């Protein structure tokens, strides 16, 4: 569909039509890819050594960035809640709101966004480089299915490690809020921690962990998808990494909203 008229002027309807068709085609391709990866991930054969290697790369090596992000988010959250709460004389609710915000929302979302940058782009660049240097063709000629050998291990590693990282992010985020509250805002350490533990529920923690599983799948899938359809050359691989990072970040935020809405409706 042409998005320009014969005179060379932009045709808004043509542009909207072309963009809509392009979006639907891309969504269709991504859905097909996701279905094939899921089939490969949940049916034998599994490459356990590859799954373990990806868990270390995605999980263990992300600990520093997740830990640092969480401590600063928790600390900033405590300061802002204290400032806002002091207008109504509600400063004492800082530990409650910090733990609620971290476990239900920020722990999973910040971890998801950090890993969209670190992991999704990394997977896309790695697989994109494998695509353009014929390594994926070589895998096929050596009787290895790329969906089982490359994509499924990354997808499973994302599903498994994101919740573990979110547990770490929750603990460090809460401790960031505790540190600021105790050392800067004059809270009593024991009271702060007791209020935190009394207030947080198993449901709050579960909400964050369920989100983390979804984010882990999304992040790994976007990296694999954009890497797999990477165009030749450094530009193609760079573009795949950028697209996967942007796509994963947007989808993490979109799924966060969708899941939050769902959890509110079912009373979780």
């Amino acid at each position, binding site marked *: 569909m042409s998005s320009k008229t014969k005179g060379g002027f932009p045709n808004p309807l043509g542009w909207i039509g072309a963009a809509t068709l392009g979006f639907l085609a891309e969504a269709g391709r991504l859905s097909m890819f996701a279905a094939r990866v899921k089939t490969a991930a949940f049916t034998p054969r599994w490459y356990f050594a590859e799954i373990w290697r990806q868990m270390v790369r995605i999980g263990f090596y992300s600990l520093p960035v997740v830990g640092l992000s969480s401590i600063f988010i928790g600390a900033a959250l405590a300061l802002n809640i204290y400032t806002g709460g002091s207008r109504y004389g509600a400063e004492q609710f800082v530990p409650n709101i910090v733990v609620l915000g971290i476990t239900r929302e920020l722990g999973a979302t910040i971890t998801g966004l950090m890993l969209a940058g670190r992991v999704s782009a990394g997977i896309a660049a790695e697989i994109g480089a494998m695509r353009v240097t*014929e*390594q994926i063709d*070589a895998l*096929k*000629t050596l009787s*290895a299915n790329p969906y089982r050998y490359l994509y499924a291990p990354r997808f499973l590693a994302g599903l498994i490690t994101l919740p573990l990282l979110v547990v770490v992010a929750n603990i460090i985020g809460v401790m960031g809020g505790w540190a600021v509250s105790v050392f800067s805002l004059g809270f009593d350490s024991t009271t702060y921690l007791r209020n935190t533990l009394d207030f947080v529920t198993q449901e709050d923690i579960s909400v964050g962990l369920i989100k983390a599983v979804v984010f882990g799948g999304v992040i790994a899938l976007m990296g694999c998808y954009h890497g797999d359809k990477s165009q030749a050359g450094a530009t193609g691989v760079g573009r795949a990494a950028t697209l996967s990072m942007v796509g994963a970040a947007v989808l993490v935020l979109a799924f966060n909203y969708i899941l939050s809405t769902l959890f509110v409706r079912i009373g979780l």
Partner: protein
Amino acid sequence: MTQPILKMTDVQKSFGPKHVLKGVNIDVQRGQSLVILGGSGSGKSVMLKNALGLMTPEQGVIEFDGVDVTRDQGKTREAMRARVGMLFQSGALFDSLTVWENVSFRLIQAERIKRGEAKERAIETLRKVRLGSDVADLYPAELSGGMQKRVGLARAIISKPDLIFFDEPTTGLDPITADAINDLIIEQVKALGAATISITHDMSSARKIADEIAMLYHGEIIWRGPSSQIDASGNDYVDQFVHGRADGPIQPSI
């Protein structure tokens, strides 16, 4: 004539409006070394990828040892791949694996051979391509281009295939290393008794390793004959290509 190990009949492949293969007809017998010549963009790599099942043709039939594998991606194709080796132009060695893990990849992943035994066989195969056991634990990035080609050759021959594809085996190598690779190809292929299909535009390599030479031009095989007759082909296209002349029926792709 016995049944060919690989036979392609009227194979056609297009990318959008561009018809890359316009009806390729070719076959190779067991133990035969066939070299396919062709300039850049003539369809050599696409033909090879169709034969390997990495692409599916729109039309035509590809038979491996008498079995139609044209559109099959299941067990028939897997059975074919278990009997086929491939040396990629770029080597296509897996960056994240060591040299011995690359060489024995099929043994470990497809044939489920234990790692200890696989490593022994990898080192033994590396010796056949004149590489010592000291390179086994290195990563591909630590090797020179010539050494990477030899590792790729070791990976292609380790499972004793019946048919080996070579995609530009000497491209990017200095003349001495290229000649050494040609010698290794001849030596190992003769030892295995395998058929080979090599695509190249390196005439010295083609003359050295080929029993027969075919020329692919604009997606069709336009000439085929014994290697010894390449200089007296009677075909203007082949003659221009063999002598590397800019003047003639083939327009330079610049």
